[in-house]
């Protein structure tokens, strides 16, 4: 496995959104060496960041988002992201979930979540998935 930082020309930005604060915090520790990390602990916080992104010039390269956000589900946030041209063009989405009823699928037409990551996963697996999302060959 290659270090993402060595491959990326510049430090990318990742937004981590999960209502499980512990997970967001430990993931931040694990990824902050390679990414600028933005944290959101709820769907509402994420939506606020999206609304502010134009004025603050912040559009993440990757979003790591739990399906169940406590106050809303990922679809609602995704719909908002898709309505913004910059986000739609730039941001890669990686959905994660521990639930059985999340519509992960390999067929984009069947599910909005082309690929997802089922909890629990190792850091190695997470880094691999993020790299794959960014079209990087990590092998």
């Amino acid at each position, binding site marked *: 496995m290659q*270090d993402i*930082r060595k491959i990326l020309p510049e430090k990318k930005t990742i937004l981590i959104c999960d209502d*499980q*604060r*512990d*997970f967001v*915090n*430990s*993931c931040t*520790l*694990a990824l*902050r*060496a*390679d990414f600028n990390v933005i944290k959101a602990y709820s769907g509402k916080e994420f939506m606020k960041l999206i609304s502010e992104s134009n004025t603050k010039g912040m559009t993440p390269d990757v979003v790591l988002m739990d399906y*169940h956000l*406590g106050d809303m589900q990922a679809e609602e946030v995704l719909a908002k992201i898709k309505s913004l041209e910059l986000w739609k063009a730039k941001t890669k989405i990686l959905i994660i*979930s*521990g*639930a*059985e*009823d999340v519509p992960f699928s390999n067929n984009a037409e069947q599910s909005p979540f082309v690929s997802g990551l*089922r*909890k*629990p*996963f*190792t*850091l*190695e*697996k997470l880094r691999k998935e993020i790299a794959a999302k960014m079209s990087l060959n990590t092998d």
Partner: protein
Amino acid sequence: MIVAVILILASYEYTAQVSANVANLSIGEIHSNARIEASDLAHILQAKLESVSQTLNLIASSSSVTTGNVTGAAPIFDAAQNSSSSLTTAYYWIGADGRILLLSTGTSQIFPSGTGFDLSNKSTFTYPKANLTTYFSGATPLANSSTYYIFISRPVFSRINSSEGTFSGVVAASIPLKTMGEFLLSELSPSFKASVGMLDFKGGILYSSNDSAIGQNVFKPQFQSEIPTGFRSAFDAFLNESLKGNSGLEDLSYNGASGTLAYQPIFVNATTDTGARVPEQFGVLYVSSVDTLASSATSVISQQQLVSIILILVIAGVSGGLAVTTLRWNKRLDDLVNEKTSELVRANSELEAKGRAEKDLMNVTAHELRTPTQSILTNSEILQRVIRRTLGITPRISGSVSNNPSEYDSLTMDITPEEIVDLVDSSVRNASRLQNLTNNILEVARIDNKTIALSKEIFDLNEAISEVIHDARIELASSNEPDAKTILFEPKQPTLFVDADRTKVSQIILNLLSNALKYTKSGGKIEIKTDSDASGGVGGKFAVVSVIDNGTGIDPDILSRLFTKFVTKSGTGLGLYITKSYVEAHGGVIQASNDPAGGAIFTFTIPLAPVQTGKNKSLVVQ
């Protein structure tokens, strides 16, 4: 060849039976509809009577009534009448002398002592006085009126002069039978042509579509004389059978036409002086219907209509000048078939419910197990790398050993000691969450298998609550909650000794407190109150505990199913199910409601110790 012969014979048999089967199917449908309607209506009526009875219980235990404060009680009676005015016409308070003290038809009328209408010789007063339990009357006329009512009444126990609580009168409510019957008719499915009749368990007619029949008794000469001689003994046998307290169904035939009569007993709970709820037979509900398809097959529509009238009128006990000559019973074999079909349907729905429960269990546990596991795994991986780097050990990630130690340095080099402590704390927190989930799943299995064992002892409930609050405060202080939440404890008495399983009672309180904390915003407030059901007096049977928060309240979508397994907006939905099971295992009850001002209120009861010990402990309130 043999097979061919069998097929031909089977085909012939099939063709020959088709027409008969069509008729039987229609009869079967009418039977099941009649049964369902009778059962539904009986349950609806039972719920209505229960709600009035419960309202009377609340009124009787209100402090204004138990202390004899008539003026103070007026708003309670008015509120009771206004809330059930579609069914009841009035609520009454009758004094110990049998005279009305207060009558509310929505607005209270107060009678000075000794001046109110005298009901001292009426069953509405004498029965609850003599038996110290709830009374459900038969059809009872009001004085100088031909309108019949049902009266529900229960005794009041004074808390003023005697600490034991002595009989000090009766509270009652009146329900016009015509209103009740019309309500039942309105509840009948519009697609099901039927009529409704109702008897009390002594044969008194509580409801008929003909007003003048209400109040008669089906076994008295006036009614008996209307039954055709040849049919009388069979019909009386049917009435006796239907009054035994079981549900059933009979087909009636008259000159080739037929109709169906389903009956369903109505049971109501009477509340005794000890607070126990004893089911009592109230009456029998009859639903009659006509086999319309069968009648067209026999081309006796006019007779069919006549039978329909007879069915209703016979139950109603009205002559109407009908010249009925013969009615005979035609007990059908398909009763047995219906019974077996019901058993199969029941077994099938039980299996489906079991399948759903297993799926729910899998979904809930999958999410709730994986979430803390994820945090523990991520934390452990980071700590593993930090420790290995610190100790100069080659990195090992997911079982593979890297040849390049510097590869992971970027991950771990800038981590601070505080962050390491946070990771360890987070792991402990999430491991504890897993432990709770495991315990809950095991406890639910014990509850479902009915293997819960109580280890009862006499202890001070207030002290147990204080301990739970103390622990909760410590946990709150160590949590990553940005702002504090206030927990207040307001016991009405310094000590409140209960006879219960201390561990389980503490768990009940912890579950309700955790729940309140979860749905209370930062800076919010949770109050816990305790009292005895005697409200400070001696002789109470139960301790009453309320947990009140000013949080987001209970989602109305799930309020009615709140204590059911897996019903939740977040989490496992097992905590409140376990809580309710624990309360009920002690013989207590638990209720949840939303405070109109905001927040949720949970109240439960636990049996008090038979004798409150004299130990006057000073209460430790954190």
